[in-house]
């Protein structure tokens, strides 16, 4: 293994280690949640007609009568072995259910991110090259208008357009990718489009400003002096130095995509994490809520660590520490 590779791995491990307190803090608070329930937690979950036996059974299974720290140790002991408890009603292992749902959410989030980048980056390069022109101004206004559209508005407007008026796409439902890839694509189209409205505008805005700053640098002027064509300069000289900023934005946009998944999944009845958490909230399925919190926070810690290291991989001048 080469020396720089080893230092990258070390830096990655340090960043993940720094994220562990964050994960512990959030999951502990999630355990303490049931103490906020009015009266006894088991009673609140089962409703007012619960028998004492049912309450005792629930307490034995989930430990709601124990103090929060004991419950937390129990949960942590299971969690490190991959056991996140069982769901409240169907009694399936939480980890198993969650992994299947997470795959759906990530398929949609990834597709939305790739689609947005594929549209926004070339457009941003083209507009940065003609900054200040009318068409650049028009795209900037369009981008700030699109940034003002919340997901719960885009789902309503786009489904009105594409599924109710034009009848091109199914309004709800889900077909897994490996069952029927083509049907999967038809069902994924609307959720992905809805998430992309905001993402395209966001990536365009950041990338355009970043490219614009890069284009003012001396090495661009010298590339022009050498007689390279504008497209060549844009793709070969301007793109690379702007990537670290775009990478950060990709990491941050994951927060948006996961947040948007609640709306998109509940609106289009897609069985992903967002849909699961809404169902869990209605059922008071605290084991599921806690596992989702844990998963989300762990993902963010890993993503932000990757983003940090991505800088160093893109720009070798940056020192990895």
């Amino acid at each position, binding site marked *: 293994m080469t020396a720089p590779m080893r230092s990258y791995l070390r830096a990655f491990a340090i960043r993940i280690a720094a994220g562990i307190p*964050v994960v512990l803090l959030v999951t502990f608070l999630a355990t303490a949640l049931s103490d906020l329930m*009015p009266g006894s937690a088991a009673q609140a979950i089962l409703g007012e007609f619960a028998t004492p036996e049912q309450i005792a059974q629930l307490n034995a299974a989930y430990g709601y009568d124990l103090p929060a720290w004991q419950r937390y140790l129990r949960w942590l002991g299971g969690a490190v072995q991959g056991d996140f408890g069982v769901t409240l009603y169907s009694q399936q292992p939480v980890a198993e259910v969650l992994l299947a749902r997470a795959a759906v959410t990530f398929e949609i989030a990834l597709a939305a991110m790739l689609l947005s980048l594929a549209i926004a980056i070339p457009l941003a390069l083209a507009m940065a090259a003609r900054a200040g022109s009318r068409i650049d101004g028009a795209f900037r206004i369009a981008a700030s208008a699109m940034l*003002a559209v919340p997901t719960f508005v885009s789902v309503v407007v786009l489904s009105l357009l594409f599924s109710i008026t034009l009848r091109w796409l199914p309004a709800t439902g889900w077909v897994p990718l490996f069952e029927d890839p083509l049907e999967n694509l038809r069902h994924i189209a609307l959720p992905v489009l809805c998430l992309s409205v905001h993402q395209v505008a966001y990536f365009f805005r950041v990338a355009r400003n970043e490219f614009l700053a890069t284009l003012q640098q001396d090495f661009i002027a010298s590339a022009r002096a050498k007689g390279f064509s504008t497209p060549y300069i844009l793709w070969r000289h301007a793109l690379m130095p702007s990537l670290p900023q775009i990478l950060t934005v990709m990491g941050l946009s994951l927060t948006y995509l*996961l947040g948007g998944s609640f709306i998109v999944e509940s609106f289009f009845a897609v069985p992903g994490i967002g849909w699961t958490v809404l169902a869990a*909230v209605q059922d008071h399925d605290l084991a599921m809520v806690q596992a989702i919190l844990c998963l989300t926070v762990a993902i963010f810690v890993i993503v932000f660590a990757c983003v940090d290291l991505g800088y160093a991989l893109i720009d070798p001048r940056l020192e990895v520490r």
Partner: protein
Amino acid sequence: MTAETLSGWRAGIARMRFPRSSFLEAFSIGFLILLVALAVLADWIPGLVNPNFPYGDFSAPPDLTLNGLFGTDALGRSILSRVIYGARQTLVIVILATAISMTGGLILGMIAGYCRGMAERTVDLLANTMAVLPPVLIILALVSVTGTSVVTMTLTLGILDIGTYARLTKGGVISQNQRDYVLAARALGAGHGRILFREILPNLVPTMTAVVPPLMAGLIITEGSLSFLGFGIPAPAPSWGGMIAASTDLISRFPLLIFGPILAIVLTVYALNTTGDFLARRIDIRERQI
């Protein structure tokens, strides 16, 4: 220049000079003023009906009367009236949450930036934790145990943004701390409290004002999302997200009735973002002159 000879709060305020605004920026600021005025004065607008009582036909299309401008909902209530009263509820939540997060963030950020060391690391941990939590998920988790509540939502929204304000304040304090005016005050024997509150804090005002409107826009979107999902402002009270969710059920028959609340929320978020850009441009001008 006068601003350089003033000190403390008067200098901070005197430096808030405004660049020329474009048409869209002027429109945005005007829209926000109008929205706040409508929300505050809703009870005294002549002819505006009560948002919670039926006023006309069920799901009547928009017409040119005041109350019928956006049509009526499935219970015959005026959508315009509900949009205006919905603005009041949303603005109260957003302003209270911002007050909480700004106070908390300023205090934590100033401590972290001024004392550094252990205090900084603790605040960083808290800020990083809050940054990785999607607010909708956290509020849903809380709602799963406490039930839907405007107070819980406002408090949580306020607490979750403390991290952002703390990080910005910390950065500001660290960058101002070594400037000549702070060193001069210290040389003259000013105490920590005086330096923080009379010297540094006023100079953070321009930076902080520029970040407030976009963060408020984020709060409006989060509140709207929760109300849309049915976990935000409880049902009979008017809320933009709840109104959009309600008219979605009837959208194939009455598509026009959805545009009132959509227009309100999109314009508000746009106006807040644009105002934020405008204020940020003002800081750029100031920094360029230094």
